[in-house]
């Protein structure tokens, strides 16, 4: 159950057809801004996502 000053992390992957899904992950806080810890955790995660996105060019390998 959601309470005051909770943090909510979620993944929703809805699909347009079997196996054709889009994955979204988001974080929300309820009743106030994020604590310093959660703000830092999110900043680290977002920096990692942005770094990966910058590498998504033809020729890039996963390894």
């Amino acid at each position, binding site marked *: *159950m*959601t*309470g*005051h*000053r*909770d*943090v*909510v*992390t*979620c*993944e*929703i*992957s*809805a*699909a*347009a*057809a*079997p196996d*054709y*899904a*889009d*994955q*979204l992950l*988001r*974080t*929300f*806080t*309820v*009743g*106030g*801004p*994020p*604590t310093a*810890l*959660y*703000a830092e955790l*999110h900043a680290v995660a*977002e920096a990692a996502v942005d770094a990966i*996105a910058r590498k*998504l060019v*033809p020729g890039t390998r996963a390894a």
Partner: protein
Amino acid sequence: MSVHGSWHRRRAEPGPLPAWSPGPRPELGDIGGIMAGQRWTDDGHLIAALSEAFREAGAVPGEFVEAAQAASRGAIAALAEALRPGATDHQVLALAEQAYVAQGGLHQIHYLGITAMDDPALGCRLSGRPDA
């Protein structure tokens, strides 16, 4: 403060869901900037690039990618709208699902973690790993 969303302490309670109405929503902290559209814009650029790449490769219809993106975005927006003290995870996820199922979208994965910011306790135990 009570701890919410601790998976290893989660307990099913069979029976009808209690009546629930949204009520007033408190301030909602949006760490990812989704309500301001920041990440949506970024994601939109990324998805557009991916869709074009898929089209060129002929591997996956780009329309499928865009439709799936719209479905997931709608679900996240509905989920955020449902968040308020007293809302259960079942209620929140039901509203999220309704947003895209009604439009023909399909369920793939839903994960929802709710815990107190000041005393977080959100974890899981792996099967066969009682110490995990």
